[in-house]
């Protein structure tokens, strides 16, 4: 059953990465404003003029 140590450590690492990500996100103020973000995505984008060129 030694593989379980591999899986446990991998899962812990993934969890740890997420934890760091979470702490960084909180510290960077990602979650300070919970009202604007859901509404912001509904605003039409700043300017959308269709380009004629076909890229």
């Amino acid at each position, binding site marked *: *059953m*030694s*593989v*379980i*140590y*591999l*899986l446990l*450590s*991998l*899962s812990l*690492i*993934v*969890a*740890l*990465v*997420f*934890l*760091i*990500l*979470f702490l*960084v*996100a909180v510290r*960077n103020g*990602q*979650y300070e*404003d*919970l*009202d*604007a*973000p*859901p*509404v*912001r*995505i*509904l605003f039409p*984008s*700043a*300017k*959308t*003029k*269709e*380009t*004629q*060129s*076909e*890229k």
Partner: protein
Amino acid sequence: MEKEHFNYDNIIVKKFLHATLIWGIVGMTIGLFLAFLFLYPDLNFGISWLSFGRLRPLHTNAVIFAFVGNALFAGVYYSLQRLLKARLYSNFLSNFNFWGWQLIIVAAAITLPLGITTSKEYAELEWPIDIAIALVWVAFGINMIGTIVKRRQRHLYVAIWFYLATFVTVAVLHIFNSFEYPVNLLKSYSVYAGVQDALVQWWYGHNAVAFFLTTPFLGLMYYFIPKASDRPIYSYRLSIVHFWSLIFIYIWAGPHHLLYSALPDWAQNLGVAFSVMLIAPSWGGMINGLLTLRGVWDKVRNEPILKFMVVAITGYGMATLEGPLLSLKNINAIAHFSDWVIAHVHVGALAWNGFLTFGMIYWLVPKLWKTKLHSVSLANTHFWLGTLGIVLYTIPMYISGVTQAFMWKQFNPDGSLVYGNFLETVAQIIPMYWMRAIGGSLYLIGAFVMLYNIYKTMSQGATVTDEEASAAPLLRLKKGRFAGEKYHSWLERKPVQFILITTVVILIGGAVQIIPTLLVKSNVPTISSVKPYTPLELEGRDLYIREGCVSCHSQMIRPFRSEVARYGTFSKGGEYVYDHPFLWGSKRTGPDLLRVGKKYLDSWHFNHFHDPQAISPGSIMPRYPWLIQNELDTSETVAKMRAMVAIGVPYTDEEIDNANHDLLKQSLQIEQNLFEDQQIEAVFKNTQGPPLHKREVIAMIAYLQRLGTDISQTQLETINNSK
């Protein structure tokens, strides 16, 4: 501040949408064909590459990685740019992602029907393709993170967190489950064996569902439902809370696929506990999605897009309620190996992934092609066909699963099994297989209706072009370190760099330390009578893998009275130490085969491969004429054994040197046994083509006759008593 002007890359989204439509139809069509193989087992007309065992992995791979995969790339690439107010990081990476992924799918569509497979579920592709997947996936990740780095919107919307979690976790899962030792370009053996391999596989398999089919689609839900309904999500706070709790809990739930198996109890219970906890974050997401539509249910009535999305979220809610329930040991004892699980995964696939993809397509295509949907009523038709299809598919499968599972467990008062013949339990559920095929047909017809509708919409629309946009750039805090700032403090301000570096460091450290010890330790047999396979049996085992026998036959007898009475004594972990890869299976369309060895004569197996229905009337196993006709390729037997030695199977040099000789000897013995059957002798004694003992079926019989025979009854008692 001066606004910057830039273009959103719509062309790449268009490409992925095309691919989604095409592969969706392909994957579902193969699925429907498989459904009909249950009803007409010989619908493959004796053609090997149309047989169930070979097409089943193609169906699952096509639907998961081709249909859902392309849909997730399309949705992520569309929403990511708009959420971050930035064009995708690199055109090259986007296109590398697209063409690389399509090439992988084509490679899968060629190799799987040819029987080139590792047999590990949803990870069947052979090692060169595995490497390609890793490369393309990393390209996707770099492209996404690059876009995040050069974003013009400092806040990362919740959808992006889901995309990030998807990338990180799938990369880790895929890499660690794909450790294989190559024999040649098209054949490899899993470096893990038996119980270990099973554990890694289901850690992967479960999380593939979690992080390939669930998290990216939750991200898409959080973008496309607000967009389609023009409502902000119900609770942003809830979305954050359920995101973090979901990803923290999900990775621990994998062992629930191995309940009552040879896995240690504590690991099983850990999996169960986390699986039950999962219900909270899962339903948090479902509730958040549904409540977003509060106040606009009238729109749902008129708008097919929202209808699709509502059914998708409802399907998600059903599947994630059912998941924790199926993880409870008492329910799992009934549901595992039965059609219940087939119903469960199809609620997820058809409703959650399928319908969310359809909704997204109906919303995106008119936007990108700058037109209106060709026909709303056709979209509604699709919706009802699809919904009816889901109902007619899943309900019969639930009934079938429960019916069969209870028949398996039914005892007479005298202690014998009521349905001792497995076939009786199959015959009972054939009507359910019919209804499933009808439900699947409806769902597929619906998909064709969509294809037509979308095709008309695309042709009436304008050419898809990149979309101009403008936004102010982010104020840079400061590039590089401040004067006097320590390297680490700088790093702390740079989440992306920080995460990448930590991941790499930790992964390398972990891998270097753990894997070598693991490989050595894992192959110490705990049961002394368990020996490696003979060369012929090894070749037979590779045929068993090639033909996908594991799709329908398990090799795992759980410690229940009903299973021990039917199949023989229950499985021990020590029996599987030379099984690279493990072949426990996850579904019993046919009976378990772990103790089939020596149960029947060699000639019984031969005749059964020739015509299963002649031996077992009503059997739904297909014929395997090609096994009987093809000559066994023994050119790599020695290479295979050497590969096995490299991953810990103790073949001696002598055994390897004598491999071909031993193989021939065992083949001749089986041929001799077969010729005791006069009919076989009459046909095959002076046959054209290779002599009978050189044919593939001989190796297959050798393997089957070996299965489960290493432990004699007396030894078993010693093992049990010594516990």
